[in-house]
């Protein structure tokens, strides 16, 4: 059976903030866009965050409306829970992507996300969305603000007891679903495949991932998020409210011994942001940030850093060399206090946060045939004047797929990628130009998005 074919102007790969923004910027120009996301919901890494620097807006207040706008935009077709198998160029110069949509075992049309199935399911599993501190069941709605807001079954951790099916009021559970093949035909491709954080166990000196109270910064985002696993900032070893928290900067960046030489750009700011938020949640807690250089380079960022200093967050210059723990699982950091006479000290904290960096998560060469740079991210050969152009004509890159960057820079770059893709579609689309459905002056066009 031939796969269902979807014809669009642009295929956007990745439903994180960069992908969503690129898709919206293309769709709002009148182009047809297919947005393909690997996870069951769009939102990317950003939707996991609590609040965002330097404005301290609640993160979901920025992300969820964009997710909603993507879902409701009449020019965007959303494909979640999909894997792209291959991308080839056809004779007419258009790309065709072979996509497999994984079965959710839930009928997406009828599911109302009432979560009765979830309550009925007996299997509790660590929830990756909560950095495994929280739980989900074998059938679950990915998270409270997921788009689409629909349940799915984790078939690999299901005993097929059928309880969910019995309680479902609309009968949407369907164990017989099969993967669906799709072919997406597009003139341009925007890669917005994002990044991965440095694994917490990457550095043996930091406990190799075995110390329970040494957590990564994404975990703290979840602890701080109102929808987080505990609803409070508690440490994972025993649920204690921490009095003393240390941040270790460059725990996954600027370290040749880890094979990551570059700066991940976001860690200084998120550590400062989290410090401020923790100070708000736990006013008595002492917070220390061990750093090499504080890199608060963006608009309003240095002022943010000064505010944190004024709030009493301690900034200590020195790279933590080693973390051990005492018998109560309190982490102990060993560090040279560079600014304080160079003495070596061992300091005990209740919880230590590794300011992990950003690394490339996959090899884009295999599917998309674009070059990667030495840092593993998509190469942008014309990086100065055309920062979104890749080595392959018609394929553009958006957001942190082209190297570490923060949300502001990702959103700006997403706009730039949309501009590049639009220009490419304009120049090479069918009939010479104007692959997009550009609208004549005065012609009414439903503006479906918010």
């Amino acid at each position, binding site marked *: 059976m031939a796969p269902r074919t979807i014809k669009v102007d642009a295929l956007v790969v990745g439903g994180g903030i960069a992908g969503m923004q690129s898709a919206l910027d293309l769709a709002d120009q009148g182009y047809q866009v297919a947005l393909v996301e690997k996870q069951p919901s769009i939102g990317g890494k950003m939707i996991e965050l609590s609040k965002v620097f330097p404005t301290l807006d609640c993160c979901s207040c920025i992300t969820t409306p964009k997710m909603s706008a993507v879902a409701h935009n009449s020019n965007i077709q959303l494909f979640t829970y999909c894997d792209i198998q291959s991308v080839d160029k056809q004779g007419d110069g258009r790309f065709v992507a072979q996509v497999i949509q994984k079965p959710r075992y839930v009928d997406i049309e009828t599911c109302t996300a009432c979560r009765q199935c979830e309550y009925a399911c007996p299997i509790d599993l660590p929830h990756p969305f909560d950095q495994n501190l929280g739980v989900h069941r074998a059938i679950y709605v990915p998270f409270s603000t997921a788009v689409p807001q629909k349940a799915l079954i984790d078939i*690999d951790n299901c*005993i097929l007891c059928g309880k969910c099916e019995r309680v479902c009021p609309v009968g949407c559970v369907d164990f017989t679903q099969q993967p669906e093949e799709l072919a997406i035909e597009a003139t341009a491709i925007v890669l917005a495949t994002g990044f991965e954080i440095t694994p917490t166990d990457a550095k043996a000196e930091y406990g190799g991932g075995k110390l329970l109270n040494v957590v990564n910064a994404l975990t703290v985002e979840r602890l701080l998020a109102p929808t987080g*696993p505990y609803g409070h900032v508690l440490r994972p*070893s025993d649920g204690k409210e921490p009095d003393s928290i240390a941040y270790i900067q460059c725990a996954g960046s600027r370290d040749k011994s880890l094979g990551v030489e570059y700066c991940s750009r976001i860690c200084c700011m998120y550590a400062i942001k989290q410090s401020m938020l923790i100070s708000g949640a736990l006013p008595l807690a002492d917070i220390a940030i061990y750093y090499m250089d504080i890199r608060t380079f963006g608009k309003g960022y240095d002022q943010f850093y000064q505010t944190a200093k004024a709030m009493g967050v301690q900034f200590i210059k020195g790279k933590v060399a080693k973390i051990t723990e005492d018998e109560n699982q309190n982490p102990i950091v060993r560090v040279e206090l560079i600014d304080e006479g160079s003495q070596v000290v061992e300091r005990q904290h209740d919880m230590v946060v590794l300011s992990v960096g950003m690394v490339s998560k996959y090899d884009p060469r295999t599917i998309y045939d674009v070059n990667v740079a030495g840092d593993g991210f998509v190469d942008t050969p014309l990086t100065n004047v055309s920062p979104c152009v890749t080595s392959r004509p018609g394929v553009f890159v958006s957001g942190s797929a082209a190297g570490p960057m923060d949300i502001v820079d990702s959103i700006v770059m997403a706009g730039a990628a949309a501009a590049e893709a639009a220009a490419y579609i304009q120049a090479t689309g069918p009939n010479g130009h104007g692959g997009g459905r550009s609208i004549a002056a005065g012609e009414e066009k439903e503006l479906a998005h918010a």
Partner: protein
Amino acid sequence: MTDKKEDTKNRAAMLKSLREKHKETVEKTQALLKHNQSIRKQIRQAMQSGPMTVPEVAEATGLPSDRVLWHVTAMKKYDLVREVGMSGEYYQYELAQKENQ
């Protein structure tokens, strides 16, 4: 009536064949479920006596406190325990009504 019976039968057969197909993961998950159920039982028993903190439950059950925390978190999410204030630096939890009975 017969239709409904037929349906139930078909459904049971379908689930059974599926279980056969996913034998490996189903068995693995069943083992996990059993393990978790025994832990939950211990935790519930320990918590019969009233609100407790995670280290208290850990002490009473002999389970590692991080595991207790995870299970309490799970139970809280699905309304099986609820948070009832703090004791020192720890939150206290008690069994939700239906669990108490």
